């Protein structure tokens, strides 16, 4: 009997890589892509690695592919920006072993800083883009992508969105193929992209585009479902599922291969229905190309361009009766934004930065929550690595005085990802800046992945642990201090020293992530007689502390005993449990 499992899109992609005989897989974590490599790493025969960033991950896979193995790289949408340089030239060289790049896009920005539409990378790099609409397709398309890659000598993008990566549906489990490593022969005309060779390869890429365009007419990746001819939808990915939910009887051209498109396929479909609507999340990528063919369709005139789609949004756009909403509270409902966890080391440092009134050039990680109340500390958050460089630019724009009131904050994983080159720039170009490396010794935001500083690899095996201190020192930073963010006085004192110093300083703020290495200290308690209800402790933004009836209260189930609140209480009203005598 066939075996089915309930898998997330990410688990299914990992399964597909395994069944298709992938030998090398590399990724940098990023929601919603992270679980792909985590699951790939469970298959012992696959060489898996967390790379320090996406460019590195892709380049490792490029090398593996050229050397003859099948390879998979996975990253979130903005990660492809980091990897874009190798990607666009890898398009020219083509592959030897099949290579698939998973781009996990995040419409609605559930966990992202923008909602760019990476289908455009297909047009830009001239490489095929496949988009699955559920977990079964996630697995099948991963396998087909690797075959296509070898057949057409091209890397292939598997583009997913959060609702496919993180939704679970049934997947048929298959037998793994043998892992084949093809012969490798040195071939400079194909793999050494000097201008002369690249010219030759560009011609090959154009021929490939034509061949793929013809393939798009015959492949089962694209599917016509003719039903009621009054409306024909051209759609792909999760939008297809929403539409089938609403109008299962309509006609569909369901695309699995999103680039290149085949004009005849689209014209034939359009001719069979009265009205064609292109339904796609985010940008009018399909619509623009279809309109350029001269086919009349509607699309973004009725379908929103921002955020993700949903059954509700599509019902509205298509003028279909919505579900009745019978219940809504009459009370104002407070939002529940994400917060720094109890015991988080970032709390101590943001409390200090806020107290000192500093400008903060921010970065991406859990510490982006330093922008939320009660801290509101961050001046900027742009992309991974931009904290150090951004602070340097501010310093150049506004002068040394400004630099004395400004710090860059960057996490350990982010420092390895793309902070190092910024620090090199700051030292080399004689800046003054103060850089705080918030070292919680894990990649926390994305769910605790190891990184070059943690001493473990993706399979949890011991690995060389790269020392941030030594790295920073070797770049030429003379002033390096290490502080514990649970020691507020020391943090402030060190920051004052380093901000005053007329050269680059690095302060390593070190405390393991509280979710990863659990603190097991007893909860603190408030001595109600001593508490004056001044709310100084609330400035820590700790979920364990609230003030009720003029007195602070610490929830013993939430408190992990980090010891920050006794340091900020002006009346010594917060004590370790057992200290007071009740």
């Amino acid at each position, binding site marked *: 009997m066939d075996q089915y499992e309930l898998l997330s899109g990410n688990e299914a992609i990992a399964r597909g890589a395994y069944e298709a005989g992938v030998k090398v897989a590399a990724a940098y974590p990023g929601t919603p892509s992270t679980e792909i490599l985590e699951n790939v790493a469970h298959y012992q025969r696959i060489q898996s690695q967390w790379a320090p960033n996406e460019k590195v991950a892709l380049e490792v896979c490029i090398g593996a592919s050229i050397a003859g193995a099948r390879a998979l790289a996975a990253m979130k949408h903005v990660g492809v920006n980091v990897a874009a340089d190798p990607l666009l030239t890898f398009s020219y060289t083509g592959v030897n072993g099949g290579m698939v790049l998973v781009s996990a896009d995040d419409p609605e920005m559930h966990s992202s800083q923008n909602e760019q539409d990476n289908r455009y990378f297909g047009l830009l790099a001239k490489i095929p883009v496949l988009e699955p609409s559920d977990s079964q397709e996630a697995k099948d398309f991963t396998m087909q992508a690797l075959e296509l890659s070898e057949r057409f000598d091209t890397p292939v993008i598997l583009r997913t969105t959060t609702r496919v990566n993180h939704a679970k549906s049934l997947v048929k489990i298959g037998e793994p193929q043998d892992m084949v490593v093809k012969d490798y022969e040195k071939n400079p005309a194909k793999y050494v992209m000097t201008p002369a060779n690249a010219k030759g390869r560009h011609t090959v890429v154009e021929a490939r585009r034509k061949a793929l365009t013809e393939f798009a007419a015959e492949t089962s990746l694209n599917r016509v479902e003719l039903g009621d001819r009054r409306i024909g939808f051209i759609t792909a990915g999760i939008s297809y599922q929403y539409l089938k939910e609403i109008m299962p009887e309509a006609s569909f051209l369901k695309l699995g291969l999103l680039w290149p498109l085949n004009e005849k396929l689209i014209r034939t479909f359009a001719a069979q229905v009265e009205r064609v609507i292109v339904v796609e999340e985010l940008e009018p990528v399909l619509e623009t190309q279809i309109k350029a063919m001269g086919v009349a369709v509607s699309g973004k005139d009725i379908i929103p361009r921002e955020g993700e789609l949903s059954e509700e949004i599509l019902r509205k756009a298509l003028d279909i009766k919505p579900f009745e909403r019978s219940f809504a*509270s009459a009370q104002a409902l407070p939002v529940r934004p994400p917060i720094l966890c109890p015991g988080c080391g970032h709390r101590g440092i943001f409390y200090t930065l806020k107290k000192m009134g500093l400008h903060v050039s921010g970065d991406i990680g859990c510490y982006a929550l330093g922008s939320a109340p009660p801290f509101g500390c961050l001046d900027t958050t742009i992309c991974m690595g931009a904290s150090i460089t951004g602070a340097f630019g501010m310093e150049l724009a506004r002068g040394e005085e400004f630099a004395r009131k400004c710090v860059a904050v960057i996490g350990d994983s982010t420092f390895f990802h793309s902070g190092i080159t910024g620090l090199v720039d700051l030292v080399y170009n004689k800046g003054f800046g103060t850089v705080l490396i918030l070292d919680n010794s894990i990649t926390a935001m994305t769910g605790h992945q190891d990184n070059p500083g943690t001493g473990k690899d993706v399979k949890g095996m011991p690995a060389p642990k790269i020392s941030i201190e030594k790295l920073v020192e070797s770049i030429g930073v003379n002033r390096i201090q290490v502080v514990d963010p649970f020691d507020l006085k020391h943090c402030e004192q060190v920051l004052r020293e380093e901000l005053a110093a007329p050269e680059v300083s690095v302060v390593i703020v070190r405390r393991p992530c509280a979710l990863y290495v659990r603190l097991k200290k007893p909860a603190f308690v408030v001595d109600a007689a001593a508490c004056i209800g001044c709310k100084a402790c609330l400035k820590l933004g700790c979920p364990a502390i*609230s003030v009720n009836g003029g007195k602070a209260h610490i929830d013993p189930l939430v408190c992990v005993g980090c010891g920050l609140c006794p340091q900020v209480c002006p009346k010594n009203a917060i004590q370790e449990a057992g200290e007071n005598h009740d």
Partner: protein
Amino acid sequence: MTKDNPVNILIAGVGGQGTVLASKILGEVAKSAGYDVKQSEIHGMSQRGGSVVTHVRYGQKIYSPLVAAGNADVIMAFEELEALRYLPYLKKDGLLIVNQQQMLPMPVIAGNAQYPKDIVEEAGAMGAQVKASAASALALEQGDARAANVVLLGILSRHLEFPEERWLDAIRKTVKDKLVDMNLRAFEVGRRQ
């Protein structure tokens, strides 16, 4: 709930409360009964103590992994404010199962907002079918407050078509070995509610 229409269940809570495990067990039960199943959740940022929701749908054929607002047969809420937040998802004759627990969100802690009052009463007064239970406290009696998710599943199980044995199998299959006994007890407690 009939077998012909998809069954739509929403599980709402606060990041870290174990909504994901609950949806996993429920998904396993529906799958083992031969249904098509889809479920959707969001990992990432919101897990840091934020509001989280998981959608579970099963039936003969399921397309969308998301429950549409106004179309949930059951909402299973791990926290009272989150119950109220997702109530517009409930069908007119749907059922709200709510853990009687209040976790203050940061705006309330910081004194910038008020925690809503009499949530269970308000939901009932609107005409919703409500089943409230002190699931966290009941779970604590069984050894661990975090098993509140399985207590709530026990309550839910009384309203779905699956035989008890399927639930117990799914729990055995899903939770860590050393926690199986405690979770089975928590499930029984919920089922007797």
